[in-house]
């Protein structure tokens, strides 16, 4: 959990907006450090986290969260398991079927009443769904439309019905602006997800090129009404990822510069 990002987003483990759909995206960069932030934030808030990790192994996330100072181990997570009986990954066999069975898996996970804790008297917070990442589904043969349907249903069940949060990571390569977009494009997926979400964090490299002290920029865009403020507020920050976390600062105020 990065404290500077918490103050930017106005969230703490004790108080965060519920029913939010957060979209993490990157273009020719790597936004997965943000996944670790949200993972440790929601774990610290004692939320029931359903983590669909399609990219890295369970140990990877566990190791990183220990490094970030997560006191509880990740055993409270529900790791994505490829049971022989599990139907969730059916789309691997036949991508045209769509992601309905994956959605069913998610729905049953977030709706179940916390039996895995063992102690039924524990108070869990609202359910949270994290997905890392959606672009992998595209490369597995699923169409962008099916992924958008999946994210719509996840949002309907987690955000609207259960008042939980959803965080999804999507990655783009290339310059964007595929005009007569092919249906399978990651651009179309990203645009569709941007329309669905309430908060986006878009990670990009610096437009001026590589810098040793600044690893890139993050554009934070609030798409829904924030209290009584104006709609669609945007803010730009630069960031640097280091061993124990990441620091965020306004453009031009990096500690290397000042």
């Amino acid at each position, binding site marked *: 959990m990065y404290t500077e990002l918490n103050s930017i987003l106005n969230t703490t483990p004790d108080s965060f907006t519920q029913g939010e759909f957060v979209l993490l995206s990157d273009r020719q960069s790597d936004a997965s450090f943000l996944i670790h932030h949200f993972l440790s934030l929601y774990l610290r808030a004692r939320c029931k986290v359903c983590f669909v990790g399609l990219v890295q192994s369970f140990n990877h996330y566990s190791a990183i969260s220990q490094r970030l100072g997560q006191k509880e181990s990740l055993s409270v997570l529900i790791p994505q398991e490829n049971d022989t009986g599990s139907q969730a990954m059916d789309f691997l066999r036949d991508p045209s079927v769509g992601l309905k069975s994956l959605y069913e898996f998610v729905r049953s996970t977030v709706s179940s009443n916390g039996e895995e804790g063992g102690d039924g008297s524990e108070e869990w917070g609202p359910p949270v769904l994290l997905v890392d990442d959606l672009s992998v589904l595209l490369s597995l043969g699923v169409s962008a439309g099916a992924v958008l349907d999946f994210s*719509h249903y996840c949002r*309907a069940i987690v955000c609207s019905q259960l008042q939980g949060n959803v965080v999804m990571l999507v990655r783009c390569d290339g310059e964007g602006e595929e005009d007569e977009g092919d249906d399978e494009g990651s651009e179309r997926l990203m645009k569709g997800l941007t*329309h669905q979400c309430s908060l986006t964090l878009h990670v990009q490299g610096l437009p001026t090129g590589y810098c040793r002290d600044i690893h890139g920029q993050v554009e934070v865009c609030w798409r829904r009404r924030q209290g009584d403020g104006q709609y669609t507020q945007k803010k730009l920050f630069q960031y640097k990822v280091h061993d124990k976390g990441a620091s965020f600062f306004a453009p031009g105020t990096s500690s290397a510069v000042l």
Partner: protein
Amino acid sequence: MLPELLQGVDTGGLLVIQDSASYSGRHLLQSFINAALNREEAVHVLGFEVSEEELKDGLRGSPVQRLHFHNAYTDPLGWTDHPAFTVHQFCLGELTRLVKQTSHSKPATLVIDSLSWILRHVSTPDVCRTLQQLRKGGAVRSIIGLLHADMHQRGTVGSVCHSATSVITVEPAMRGDEAVAKITKRSKSGKVIQDEEIFRIKDDLTVVVQSKSSKGAKKADSEEQETDPTANLTFNLRLSDTEREAKQKLALPFVFSKEKKTALLHSGPGSGRIHYEPDANDDYDQEDPDDDLDV
């Protein structure tokens, strides 16, 4: 033109609000819903993209008793056993039944949020046909649809907008809380009016038009900024009024005007005359060149 459209879409009309990922058109859509509710019209919302709570949350302060929300958000594809309304039910029969469920004296306004969701699952010709049938059908008075232009190919967007009577394309403006609306309106006589306005939506969902198109504003600025080139010179380039009149009256020497023609052809008194007395030597007969030889 935006306030005019807000006062009511013509009967049998289809208004399409086009937006993109950089600026959401849903806020403007809520302004239209609010305006219709304030006019005591019944509004039916076919909601695919946002839940009822979220939509009504944005309509705080509006008389929502006349708003009927048809839930196509929780299960639009029929993945559960009891879907309320699926995207495949988007056809004339089903929609007419849906609207007529609530009996009202006046035909209602149908708001579709959003057309993009439907276009992802139903083919474009079918969607356009259903919209056309709805317009002519009489079950609904007018239709307002939200379309995310950057999610479809240009042909799809073009087809849907072609069947619309008015199209408003919204984009972010320079200032954060303002937006630019490019409006195209087709009247029944076939006339097409286009306009571009900068607007802001207030907290009570009324729309305030800040100024006309940004292009017009820029032009006025540049005219004001242009300095008078005849100022601050060491010589005088300006003309007084009498000088200007004399300059305009002056006939240029090589311009062959009508007055000059008549002056030349019918020379007035006192101008030179030419008297010609034929001389014997001038009598030159072409056929007999030796006529003057005394042989």
